C-alpha cells in the first residue's frame, strides 16, 4: 500500500454482467483537489458514493489515512458528501441543516452554535440561518450543503457535480469560490463532474473516466497536452479535437484522411510505416494558403463567429475538423491547415499514444 492519504485499490462495483466501476485504483494525497471527469454513466458518481459507504463494493479495498474504510458504515466514516441536488432536509431550517451532523456527534450546544455560525460565515450565508431550504436560491442552497458537509470537519470532502444545477454566471462564481474554500480549509477533496472546463479550472489532478475505468490521471496540463489515448484527447478540449487517420506506406508515402500529404521534414522523420491517428486541436492549428509546405489539404464547410474568434469547420478528405482562427473563411474554399504546436499521435485503434509530431515552428 502506498503512503497516500486515500488509497483505492482494484475497486469493482456492480454486477459481473453490468460492472459500473471496473477495477479502479487511485491514490490521493493529503490536501489534494482531485477531479473525476467523464461522460454521464461512466461510474464517477458511483465511486463517490462507494467512498461515502452508500454503495457497497463487490471487490477491492479503500483505505483512508492508513485505516480500511470498507467495514465502516457510512455514518461512522466522517466523509462529507455534497449531493448534486444538495439534498437539504426540507423540514429543517438552514441552521438545523448545518447543525445536523453536530447533533449526531453529540457536540455540546454552545460549541455547536459557534461552529454552525462559523461554517455559515465561511460560505457567506450568516443572514439566512432561520429560513427553510425552499426559500433559498440555488446558489444559496449549494452553500448550505457545503457548510453542512464542512461543519463536521470531515476527513474527506466529496463533491458530486456541485455546480451542475446552477446557472452559467453563478457556476463561474461558485467554481472560483469552491477552489478558494479548498485553499483556505486545506481539505482533501474529490469532485465529480462531466464539465471539463470545471475540471481544468479547479483540479490539482484530473482522473478521466470512461465506461467504469480510469483512462488517465494527471495534472490538467498533462491531460490536455499529453493525452494518453484518443478518448482523453477528444473528450478534453472544446470544441473537441479531430482525429485524422494517417497512414505511412513502406516507401514513406504519407496519406492523411485518404489524401496524399507531404509532412514537414521534422514530422516525416518521426513517422514509421503503418497506420495511426493524428490529433488536431482547433486552437493548435492555423489556416494557411492551400499550397503552403507541410499544410494539410482541407475544404471549408462553414464558419461560426464568437466575437473573440472564429471557428472554421473544414473537412480533410471525409474527416471533419475545426480550426480556431482570427478571421472568417468562405464556404467551399480550399485551404491548408498547418499544425502550429505539438500534436499527439495515437495508434490506429486510438488506445495508446505512440508518438508526437512536432510542428515546423
Amino acid at each position, binding site marked *: 500500500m502506498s503512503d497516500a492519504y486515500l488509497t483505492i485499490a482494484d475497486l469493482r462495483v456492480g454486477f459481473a454482467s453490468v460492472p459500473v466501476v471496473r477495477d479502479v485504483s487511485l491514490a490521493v494525497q493529503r490536501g489534494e483537489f482531485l477531479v473525476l471527469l467523464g461522460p454521464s454513466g461512466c461510474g464517477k458518481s458511483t465511486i463517490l458514493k462507494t467512498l461515502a*459507504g452508500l454503495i457497497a463494493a463487490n471487490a477491492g479495498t479503500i483505505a483512508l489515512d492508513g485505516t480500511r474504510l470498507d467495514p465502516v458504515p*457510512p455514518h461512522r466514516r466522517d466523509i462529507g458528501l455534497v449531493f448534486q*441536488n444538495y*439534498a437539504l*432536509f426540507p*423540514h429543517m431550517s438552514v441552521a438545523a441543516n448545518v447543525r*445536523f*451532523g453536530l447533533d449526531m456527534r453529540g457536540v455540546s450546544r454552545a460549541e455547536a452554535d459557534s461552529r454552525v455560525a462559523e461554517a455559515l460565515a465561511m460560505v457567506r450565508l450568516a443572514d439566512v440561518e432561520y429560513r427553510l431550504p425552499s426559500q433559498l436560491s440555488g446558489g444559496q442552497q449549494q452553500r448550505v450543503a457545503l457548510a*453542512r458537509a464542512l461543519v*463536521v470537519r470531515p476527513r474527506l470532502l466529496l463533491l458530486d457535480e456541485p455546480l451542475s444545477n446552477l446557472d452559467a454566471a453563478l457556476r463561474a462564481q461558485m467554481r472560483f469560490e469552491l477552489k478558494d474554500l479548498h485553499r483556505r480549509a486545506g481539505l482533501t477533496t474529490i469532485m465529480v463532474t462531466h464539465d471539463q472546463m470545471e475540471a481544468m479550472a479547479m483540479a490539482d489532478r484530473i482522473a478521466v473516466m470512461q465506461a467504469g475505468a480510469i483512462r488517465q490521471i494527471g495534472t490538467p496540463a498533462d491531460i490536455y497536452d499529453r493525452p494518453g489515448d484518443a478518448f482523453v484527447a477528444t473528450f478534453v478540449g472544446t470544441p473537441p479535437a479531430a482525429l485524422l487517420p494517417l497512414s505511412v506506406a513502406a516507401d514513406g508515402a504519407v496519406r492523411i484522411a485518404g489524401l496524399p500529404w507531404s509532412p514537414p521534414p521534422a514530422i516525416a522523420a518521426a513517422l514509421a510505416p503503418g497506420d495511426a491517428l493524428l490529433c488536431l486541436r482547433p486552437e493548435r492549428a492555423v489556416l494557411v494558403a492551400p499550397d503552403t509546405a507541410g499544410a494539410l489539404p482541407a475544404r471549408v464547410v462553414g464558419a461560426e463567429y464568437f466575437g473573440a474568434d472564429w471557428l472554421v469547420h473544414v473537412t480533410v478528405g471525409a474527416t471533419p475538423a475545426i480550426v480556431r482562427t482570427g478571421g472568417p473563411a468562405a464556404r467551399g474554399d480550399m485551404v491548408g491547415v498547418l499544425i502550429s504546436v505539438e500534436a499527439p499521435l495515437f495508434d490506429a485503434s486510438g488506445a495508446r499514444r505512440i508518438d508526437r509530431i512536432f510542428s515546423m515552428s
Partner: protein
Amino acid sequence: MSIGAAVLTALVYAFVLAPIVVLVFSSFDTAPYFSFPPGGYSLHWYATAWQSAEYRDALGVSILLAATATLIAVPAGTAAAYALARATWRGRTVVQAILLSPLALPLIVWAIELMQFYARIGLSGTMLGLALAHTIIVLPFPVRIMLASFARIDPALEQAARTLGASPLRTFARVALPLAAPGLVISIAFAFLTSFNDVVVSSFIAGARSLTFQVRLYSQLRSQGVDPITLAIGAVLAAAIVLAAIVCERLFRWSRHV
C-alpha cells in the same frame, strides 16, 4: 368541457351526497317516523340520543376498538412500508401484495372463515378477537399510504443524513418519518375510520359484550327499521367526518394519497 358532462357530473354528485344531506335533514324531524315534508323540526332526537346509555356504550366499544386497531396497525404498517420502500430484494412485491391483500380479496369470505377459525382457537365473541380482526382490515391503509409517502422522499436526503453521521434508526426518526408526517396523519385517520365504520366483520364475530355502534345500528335497522335516535347520532358522526375531511384536505391534501 362539454355541458353534458358537467350537468351529469353535478347530478352524480347530488346523488352521491344526497344520503348524507337527507340524514342530517331528517334528524331534525319531530315525528318518530320520518316523512317528507316533515311536520316540524326539533332537537328532540338529539336530546334522546344524548341520554341513551345503550348507544353510548356501543359508541364506546367502537372507539376503543378503532383506537386499539389503529394503535397496532399504524406502527406495524409504517415499519413494514418503510422496509418495503427501501427494499431492493426480489420478492418484495409479493410481500407488498400480501400486506395489501385485504383490499383486494372479499372480506366477507374471510369473515366467514374467521368465525370458524375463532371457534377453533377460542377467540369467539371476545374483544381480543374483534380487535385482531379490525387490525387486519385497517392494516393495508397505513401500508399503502406510507409506502407512497416514503417512496416520494428523495433517497439522497437519507443518504445525506447517513454521511453526516446518523445511524439507520436515527435517519428514519429524524428524516424519513418527519417528511412522511402528512401520510402518517392520513393513515391514522383512515385506519380509525375503517375500523369504526366496519359492519360486516364486526357483525359476524362480535360477541354480546362487544357490540359496536355499527352492529347495534345494523341489527336495529334489520329488526325495527329506522330509529330516529340513530339518525341524530349518524348525523353528528357524518357531520364530524365531513368537516374533518374538508379541514384535512386543506391541511394535508389527503385526496392525493388514496
